[in-house]
């Protein structure tokens, strides 16, 4: 009897421990999200898309003493034979100043096509300080055959951008989003928190 009781107690102990481990592992799965955020924050990984801040642009004092060159480039990926380029190749802005640039996309095919643009900012260390307050990125853009559209992007280079940054490049790559056009949000990771549904052109 007592032996059986001891054995039962031991089994109970093991079961409790096993369940606790399972719960802890399940919890750890959720803890990965803030842990990875923290890790990426420290190492600066995954900061390449720049930051989309859809709320009101924080009023920042313009730093007139510095002038930063912002370059624009556009790419179209395979599978989306559109014409896509910035209206101006570069502009100079003061940190803190809200500026607007325009990209032009034209559907040169004879089909209706849906594209989606992905931003990327270089150099790495400037990406976190490059805030886009209005952006056509991560949202579907549908163009009729031959249609062209101007796409504005408003941005601020924050005043705390590192001193040795003199040039920032903003690159947009347009991809064929036909595959993703049914669900706008997608499951993307790079921009999941930055997705804005396509409201304007």
């Amino acid at each position: 009897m007592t032996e059986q009781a001891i054995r039962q107690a031991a089994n109970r102990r093991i079961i409790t421990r096993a369940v606790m481990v399972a719960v802890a592992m399940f919890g750890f799965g959720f803890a990965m999200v803030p842990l990875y955020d923290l890790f990426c924050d420290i190492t600066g990984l995954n900061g390449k898309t720049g930051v989309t801040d859809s709320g009101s642009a924080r009023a920042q004092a313009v730093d007139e003493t510095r002038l930063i060159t912002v370059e624009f480039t556009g790419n179209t990926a395979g599978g989306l034979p559109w014409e896509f380029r910035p209206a101006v190749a570069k502009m100079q802005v003061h940190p803190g100043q809200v500026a607007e640039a325009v990209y032009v996309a034209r559907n040169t095919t004879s089909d209706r096509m849906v594209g989606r643009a992905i931003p990327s900012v270089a150099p790495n260390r400037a990406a976190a300080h490059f805030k886009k307050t209005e952006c056509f990125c991560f949202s579907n853009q549908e163009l009729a055959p031959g249609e062209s559209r101007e796409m504005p992007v408003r941005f601020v280079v924050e005043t705390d951008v590192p001193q040795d940054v003199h040039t920032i490049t903003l690159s947009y790559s347009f991809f064929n989003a036909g595959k993703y056009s049914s669900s706008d949000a997608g499951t993307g990771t790079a921009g999941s928190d930055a997705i804005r549904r396509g409201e304007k052109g």
Partner: protein
Amino acid sequence: MATAEAAHHEEHHHPSGIMRWITTTNHKDIGTLYLSFSLMMFMVGGAMALVIRAELFQPGLQIVDPHFFNQMTTMHALVMIFGAIMPGFVGFANWMIPMMIGAPDMALPRLNNWSFWILPFAFTMLLGSLFAPGGGPASGWTLYAPLSIQGGMSVDMTILAVHMMGISSVLGAINIVVTVFNMRAPGMTLMKMPLFVWTWLITAYLLIAVMPVLAGAVTMLLTDRHFGTAFFDPAGGGDPVMFQHIFWFFGHPEVYVMILPAFGIISEIIPTFARKPLFGYASMVLAVAGIAFLSFIVWAHHMFTVGMPLIGELFFMYATMLIAVPTGVKVFNWVATMWRGSMTFETPMLFAISVVVLFTIGGLSGLMLAITPADFQYHDTYFVVAHFHYVLFSGAAMAMMGGAYYWLPKWTGHMYDEKLGKLHFWLTAIFFNITFFPQHFLGLAGMPRRIPDYALQFTEFNVMSSIGAFGLGFSQLLLVYVVVKCVRGGEKASAEVWDNPKGLEWTVPSPAPYHTFETPPQVR
């Protein structure tokens, strides 16, 4: 007495013929299955390597087209890593761990059977993918997105095969952990366990930690390919580099999965033939644990060129360099074990010594690769190919060969042919160096990896490397011959086999009876 008893058991409880092997739950049978499977895959993967080297013998396209060449590089890696090296070490673990800790069998014998029998199906699927429309997977064993997203159905077959291998590895690893913690003989404390058991215990934890990560990565790849997700597809807002991060979070610990058990085998062989206890046992255990820990925080050194931020590059450079410290401790300890010993040089010892030397070459080139600025020049060149073959062939594979010669008499009851064993060693060691040493120079001179054809200035070293590869490949037939010959007969081996070796496995007769340690031995 024990043998008679074993024979008795066998008669009554075991089907014979093929059913014995399919239904077996005996750790020795399963170990044999794993080792035979591993040897078979070693030959298959080796044949693929020879296709690669034959094409690279001369500049120009002669034998295969570039698409098939890419399939060969991809499959060679997958087969060697998941088919030859990992199952090989699991085979050693199955045979030796219960015998080393004085346990009658593995803790979960049916699971053990299952974890082996998944493998033939996984590899039928993987090798079958070569015959899929459009050919086998051709995006490298790393399956980098988006290239792997372009591939045909062979990529899906590979993904499913990887899932199966992952299940098999995780089950095997769980079995080892449970066995080591629950089945040790009385008196066999953790710090008395043979180093091979220690390295496998830590390896098992690595496997349990990272195989699910690989499964996750390839599952995301699968859903990207077929179910409209966009984890790695920039068009949907995904990030191709994230695949590399996840893959190498698995991939780097995986490298240590393939080398830690080799360290364990070497640490068993050297003391026996130096007739001297292993130097610094405690620091060896600590070093293995240290390497295992560091393996989790160095993954991005495989991807310095993807455009990481400076801080990221610095972090991964420093962490990677740190690995040199525990690895150095291991090498120094092995040398110190030999120091003032009374050495003899039978085949296992020859293999062990050459592993120490050649692995160190791979380790030192690894240190060079850790230096980020220099890595920009080495990355994805033949320098890297040379580096990881020094680690995985002359580290992992040659340690397994040494281990096989060391324990074959215990497994079969016969001495292997020492003359042929030594011949096999010398052919392997010499041809290995002829094959892979010139590849260091090729990489430095600018030859990228995974190319089916090359510029003329790389010709001489490629010729040398191809000649070495064919020599190396055909010398392995000798290994098969020696093993088969030893299984079939030969000089009777004593229980100890060697000159007073340490460890419980040498206290049972040779061949080890079907059931050992049914009453646990007392370890003092």
